[in-house]
């Protein structure tokens, strides 16, 4: 028995003690010629194949940005669709270099699971959707309500926690399949539907006969900062991914878009000159070409463009910027200065 336990510990230990040598990932990816990116099997707006089977979404754009920074070609990505259970082992085992799969940044994942998070690319939170006719204004009005929810996810747990904390009660209607859950809600079996706010907007846009009849309540009952992750122990690679994301946010702060980035090369603004590699230095520090940020903005666009294209006004989700607006507009998107 003890031998078995020692052996098991040794095996698990050696598996978890695999973090690559500093800098190894960047060199390996460069030598390979493409980025291996772990994405969702299909979450519209974040990562999903479009009608032509091409990957698109907010998470996919992070993969594309990193590829553009490394190779000057945003298409040099190999996408590995991963299920929720598969995603962490796949990253630990080196099957993917980067996990951009709507993963919430939590303490446990940051420490015990051997991940390093870069910076959130979408601030989500669990919310409620109700019928406008119900006249409910806040989550606090939902005492005694029947609530439709998916089983076995943190969603169910958050819901129970929220109601216990506010000394309220609710009757859960738990349905395994998304489509059935949503049709149950729209056919009136529940007073409210609870899921991540970004999901609720998509469900309302797609499945409601008349989207205007349904409201998403303003209160969010959980924090879900969706953040790309890399393996722990390779700071250089973490830097590359993190600054690729910052470059997109910074470009939006500076008003540089994929259309204007070429003319911005002539801008007298020293911050922009450093970002776009007119003044050399950033690229060398990251181990990349000096045009890294230029290539990202040229091929993927700034954060705002990526947002609107995938989940915002130009998409079917029609999400508001909300928490994901720039800090100058009351949101949380804030790029560290690239100098």
């Amino acid at each position, binding site marked *: 028995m003890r031998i078995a336990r020692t052996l098991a510990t040794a095996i698990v230990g050696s598996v978890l003690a695999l973090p690559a040598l500093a800098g190894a990932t960047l060199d390996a990816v460069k030598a390979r010629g493409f980025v291996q990116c772990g994405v969702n099997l299909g979450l519209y707006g974040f990562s999903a194949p479009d009608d032509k*089977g091409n990957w698109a979404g907010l998470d996919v754009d992070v993969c594309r940005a990193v590829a553009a920074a490394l190779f000057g070609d945003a298409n040099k990505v190999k996408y590995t669709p991963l299920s929720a259970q*598969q995603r962490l082992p796949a990253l630990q085992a080196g099957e993917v270099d980067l996990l951009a799969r709507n993963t919430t940044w939590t303490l446990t994942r940051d420490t015990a699971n051997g991940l390093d998070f870069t910076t959130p690319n979408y601030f989500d939170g669990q919310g409620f959707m109700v019928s406008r006719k119900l006249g409910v204004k806040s989550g606090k009005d939902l005492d005694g309500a029947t609530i439709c929810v998916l089983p076995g996810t943190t969603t169910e747990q958050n819901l129970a926690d929220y109601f216990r904390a506010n000394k309220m009660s609710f009757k859960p209607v738990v349905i395994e399949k998304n489509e059935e859950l949503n049709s149950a809600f729209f056919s009136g079996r529940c007073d409210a539907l609870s899921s991540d706010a970004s999901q609720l907007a998509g*469900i309302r846009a797609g*499945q409601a006969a008349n989207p205007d009849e349904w409201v998403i309540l303003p209160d969010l009952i959980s924090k879900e900062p969706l953040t790309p992750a890399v393996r722990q122990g390779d700071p250089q690679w973490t830097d590359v991914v993190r600054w690729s994301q910052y470059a997109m946010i910074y470009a939006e702060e500076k008003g540089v878009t994929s259309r204007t980035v070429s003319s911005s090369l002539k801008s007298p603004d020293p911050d922009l000159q450093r970002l776009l590699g007119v003044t050399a230095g950033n690229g060398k520090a990251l181990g990349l070409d000096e045009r890294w940020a230029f290539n990202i903005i040229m091929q993927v666009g700034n954060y705002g463009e990526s947002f609107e294209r995938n989940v915002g006004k130009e998409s079917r989700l029609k999400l508001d910027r909300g928490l994901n607006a720039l800090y100058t507009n009351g949101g949380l998107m804030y790029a560290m200065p690239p100098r």
Partner: protein
Amino acid sequence: MNPSSWIKANLFNSPVNSLLTVLALALLGQVVPPLVDWAVVRASWGPGDPETCRRAGGACWTLLTEKHRLMLFGVYPYDQHWRPLLAMALFVALLAVSANRRFWRPWLGGAWLLTVVVIGILMWGGVLGLVPVETSQWGGLPLTLVIAVLAIAMAFPFSILLALGRRSELPAIKALSVGYIELVRGVPLVSVLFMASVMFPLFLPEGITIDKVLRALVGMTLFTAAYLAEAVRGGLQAIPKGQFEAADALGLSYWQGMRLIVLPQALRLVIPPIVNQFITCFKDTSLVTIVGLYDLLAATKAALNDPGWRPFFVEGYLAAAAVYFCFCFFMSRYSQWLERELAKGTR
């Protein structure tokens, strides 16, 4: 017999039967008109968007017009779809030829090998000017077929060896076979695939990965073989002892006796359970979505993931079900024909 007397003789030949006939007709009258109304009359056909469907109010076959390529081919590069299409056509042609007893000649084995190689070249590319396509991009019906057919083709011979091993008088071989069969049958396929996809990579050195399709394929093969082995063993047990003794008396070696006398009789007896297992295997391929592969069902789900089309999931799943049904129905009809064909000698 004219129609009215046939009806009298078959549908209204007793009070109970008359009542049942009337009830059945009433039920059909309740179900069929709304179904036809939904599926045909108010249905929306041809190209369009979700709004077209919503206005039509019936079945949304527009979904299939708009999304059929994603459903059929998954994330395979769009401009290369002719390759999996051609591969499937070749494959169906090969099946049609193989189904015919006239062509059961040694060259058929060669034809299979050749077709598998050609299909491999078409799917992978990288030679003859074809763009290389990695297995991670394979998807849809071609992936379902590749996994199902290769798993069945590899599991079948393996299962015969296992069944013979289980009846062997050599203790080591017998123990190995029994152990293998019981172990694999004792766990669900989902957990085998899960081990292959989640646990297995953790034990490999970093950077070394084994192709996902291969992992799923090996998992399916090992699993199907264990079940098939028990079906084959059932056939072996049904062969009278005299047949084995006759083979020995003729001076045939063990393998000759098995190949020429025992197995041809045993396998014929167990065609129904074997085909049963083939059909199960074909449908079980939909579980490979756990490994992150887009088989037909997963690709259909991906197509339905687009918020605009989500309300029309019934139509999407119906289409996927129809494809599965075609293949399974073909297998089951063929096995019935094969049973009759092979039983000619005993009539």
